[in-house]
């Protein structure tokens, strides 16, 4: 009886933690441009995306490795370190050459954005944030026009 009790306590401790880590399996935000798929959290390689026009790196406050930013003509890809690899955590669109999968681009008006993505957004000032699984899609707007679009990973830990 005692053994069962002890085993029970140990199982409880482990299960409480494991439950929190249950993987979600919803679709993430992604898009394609120039026959390339842009998927957040994927490993970034220059073989796939080509040589950038500009490169910068900054450290996060405490974590080991560098956050790197690769700037291309129409978008900017930022990565976070994951062991030997760099994974994509943000794609920031720089102009209207790139359109989201749902057909919205910089210079479109907010009503077109709402038509494409619906009304389940979080408003932060004049930016609109849509969330799907662990990814977010932010539309920066000014005077009801989309002036910036950013895909990001929502990083919790």
């Amino acid at each position, binding site marked *: 009886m005692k053994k069962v009790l002890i085993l029970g306590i140990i199982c409880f401790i482990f299960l409480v*933690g494991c439950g*929190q880590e249950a993987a979600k399996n919803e679709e993430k935000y992604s898009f394609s441009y120039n026959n390339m798929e842009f998927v957040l959290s994927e490993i970034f390689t220059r073989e796939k995306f080509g040589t950038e026009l500009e490169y910068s790196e900054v450290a996060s406050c405490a974590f080991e490795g560098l956050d790197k930013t690769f700037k291309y003509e129409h978008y900017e890809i930022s990565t976070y370190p994951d062991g030997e690899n760099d994974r994509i955590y943000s794609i920031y669109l720089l102009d209207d050459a790139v359109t989201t999968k749902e057909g919205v681009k910089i210079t479109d008006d907010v009503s077109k954005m709402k038509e494409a993505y619906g009304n389940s957004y979080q408003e932060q000032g004049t930016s609109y944030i849509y969330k799907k699984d662990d990814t977010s899609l932010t539309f920066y707007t000014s005077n009801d026009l989309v002036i910036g679009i950013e895909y990001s990973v929502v990083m919790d830990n």
Partner: protein
Amino acid sequence: MKVVRVSLIFILLLMTFWFLNVLVSPKYMDSLVEGSMISEYYDTPKNHEVIFIGDCEVYANFSPMVFYEEEGISSYIRGSSQQLIWQSYSILEETLKYETPKVVIFNVNAMRYSEPVSEAYNRLTIDKMKWSKEKVEIIRSSMMEEENFLSYVFPILRYHSRIFELTKEDFTYFFQKKTHTFNGFLINQAVNGVKSLPSKRPLTEDDFADITYQYLDKIRLLCEEKGIELVLIKAPSLYPYWYSEYDEKIKEYASKYQLDYYNFLENILEINLDYSTDTYDGGLHLNLQGATKLSKYFAPILKEKYSLTDYRENNEVSVYYEKELEKYYEEIGSGV
């Protein structure tokens, strides 16, 4: 007899539970050392006339050793990675239980964050705090949606998977610890100059969130109540961008409540900062050389403006600082 046996089993279970909790908790000694900084304060003499609170922009950019060496100032940096303003408030409350400084310096970068950013940063600030009502308050106000309070009380609930990833660090520092900072200043001597910075995102809110003002008010009122001068600063980190709209709002606040505000981004030339050599990560934090320049610039301002004591003339305090300086120079070698 049965009662004794049951009690012994119960005690054994408790001890095992405690042992496992300590074993799997991150030690923050050889890796992620930023997680140990908040607790280093508890072991230092409490004789500080200046206390800094804020995020990495304070613990990386200001050196209390330089403040002492230059002007005899006794100061401590109670900074931590991504310290949010409600965390700064609770850390200040906790600090004031130990001592009452003349000046509290708050780095305003945290005003841009109105909600918790990540569990990992929460842990770095909270895990090693001593248990107190301030710690309880910090946990409550900082938890992300998926977090739960109990996992801070019993770390095994959060870190149980580390049982399969234990390293030498977990055993070496099971009972002991070491210090990484000099009065809260974390030295980094690497040089990685600014080459280019990520694109500036459009600013879609030209004012800070109400909650950040509420906590800034609380910090101000707490300082007022204790007769402490509150000083606002913005460290000269080039990234994340400090928008001019943000700066205006802080200037308005400072003027409204007659607080001093130093935005060191406006004094880069006077400080003689060279971002090709004085930063270790492309402009986010200053390295030792940059922090030394900034601290040498700020030390006489602090001393004169707030009539601080020259502790070089106080034997009791100077003994501590002289020892620390010896270790400091040993660690930095010919770094500056």
